[in-house]
């Protein structure tokens, strides 16, 4: 009886181990390849060298990396500033047209990012703002596609907050502004930061939008890596890939320590 019960579970664990191998294998192999001593992406690596890691920090790559970081940071900031009032409206108010505005806000999650990109490219060109291509178009597009992440996360933290806390403060004589400043905002701060980091990560890892609106010289790291791939798969790219994986990972690990970002990721999905 006991063995019969354990068997399916053992089988499941075996499957799960294989699936983890599938998930982590390519990332592990990419890491290994970056230490090749040759200039080709051999696996298993031939020899050991750190020169590709050195090359990954050359200006040619630092420039797009810095560009991506700045773009993602600015995008996350704007998405949060725009996202807080939206989240308040969705979580705290009933008003005509709410469903429509919510659909517009979350729309970029439904519409493929690539379509958002070509639509923006064509729209700006058609209305004569083609000169906005490059930085402005990138920033606008990234805010559009990252906004749903900050709005949803902030709205979740507003909904999770017991309304009685605010009523209590108001009942004790605090003005609405004081309630907002001393009760509401401190309580949703973790949610705001979680939303900000989701927006940052989504912007930092985007390729489908940037591909169409970025200009040479102002390219995010993902576009730079992709266009360099045409010239072959140098181990430098493996090193760069790992660097651009580590940045969001560090951000989440750091934030996870302070605000438990995992809870938000989880709740977000559960609420659809």
């Amino acid at each position, binding site marked *: 009886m006991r063995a019969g019960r354990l068997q399916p579970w053992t089988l499941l664990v075996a499957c799960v181990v294989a699936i983890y191998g599938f998930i982590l294998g390519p990332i592990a192999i990419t890491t290994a390849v970056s230490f090749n001593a040759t200039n080709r992406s051999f696996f298993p690596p031939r020899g050991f060298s750190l020169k590709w890691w050195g090359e990954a920090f050359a200006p040619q790559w630092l420039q797009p990396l810095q560009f991506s970081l700045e773009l993602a940071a600015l995008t996350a900031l704007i998405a949060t500033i725009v996202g807080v009032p939206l989240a308040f409206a969705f979580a705290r108010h009933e008003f005509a047209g709410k469903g429509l505005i919510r659909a517009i806000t979350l729309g970029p999650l439904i519409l493929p990012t690539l379509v958002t990109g070509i639509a923006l490219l064509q729209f700006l060109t*058609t209305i004569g703002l083609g000169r906005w291509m490059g930085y402005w178009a990138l920033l606008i597009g990234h805010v559009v596609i990252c906004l749903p992440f900050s709005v949803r996360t902030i709205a979740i933290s507003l909904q999770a907050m017991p309304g009685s806390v605010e009523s209590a403060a108001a009942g004790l004589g605090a003005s609405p502004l004081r309630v907002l400043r001393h009760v509401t905002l401190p309580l949703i701060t973790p949610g705001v930061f979680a939303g900000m980091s989701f927006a940052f990560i989504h912007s930092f890892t985007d390729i489908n939008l940037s591909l169409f609106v970025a200009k040479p010289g102002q390219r995010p790291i993902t576009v730079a890596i992709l266009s360099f791939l045409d010239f072959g798969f140098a181990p430098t790219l493996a090193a760069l890939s790992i660097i651009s994986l580590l940045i969001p990972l560090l951000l989440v690990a750091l934030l996870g320590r302070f605000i438990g970002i995992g809870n938000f990721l989880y709740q977000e999905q559960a609420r659809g």
Partner: protein
Amino acid sequence: MLVSNQRRSWMPYLLVAAPAGFLLFFFILPAASLLSASLMEYDGSLPTGEWTLENFELLLTRPLYINAIIRTFVVGGAVGLLVVLLSYPLAYFLVRTTSLWRNLLIAVSLAPLLASVIVRTYGWWVILNREGAINSVLQSLGMIDKPLIMLPSTVAIVVGLTHALLPYGVLTIMASLNGLNPNLERAAMSLGASRTRTFFAVTLPLTAPGIVGGFLLAFAIAISAYATPAILGGPSTEVMATMIRNFMVSTLDWGPGAAMGAILIVSAIALLLLTSWIGDRRREA
């Protein structure tokens, strides 16, 4: 809420006006104009305003384009199936395990979400190329003489996308398993059903909406994916996203590009309706 709603009825509009205006101008209007322009004659990269079905006719009459469209949806379906197939056991394990490492295991299974698709696809190129991991291992074992040609291929694209989209399946199915009333499974087992039978008769059917949701999510992202098909595919394995890139950037032939974009928009809306219809049915049930 303490604040009287009547006195503050203008408040929500004040809150949403600026963001909604921004989205209207930079998201809705561009998408709508892409849709309408797909039905217009183009002069290079500018729609002329003359209505025509030419763009769609072109896409649906040239084998090259039809094949790309068909390949896109086949890839999407295959990726959706594989994602569900692989993420169900993983999600089930993560929800049911009592391991101390549970949180770490969840984090690791979701970590790929933090990496750009490029990072995730690069590893597959290293594994599958002519001098790649698989070929060097097989050759050193003496199992093959000549390297296997695995790239570019549609299968490689499917494998790469499955890998990239697996976390979405895991999240969706975990949410569905977490929402399951544990008493139902207990009841089945107390009535004498084995663990395996309980799983197939109770757990699996009740989490079917999660399975369908995971499939549709992976499908929707897969049909518009660019980087993976661009890296693991080639001229013989074009999909809609790589074609759109050619139209919009290389050949500056925006008419058919807009038409392909329109096909993606319509598919996305159809998938959304399908998903919410399934969600409604689940609530009714």
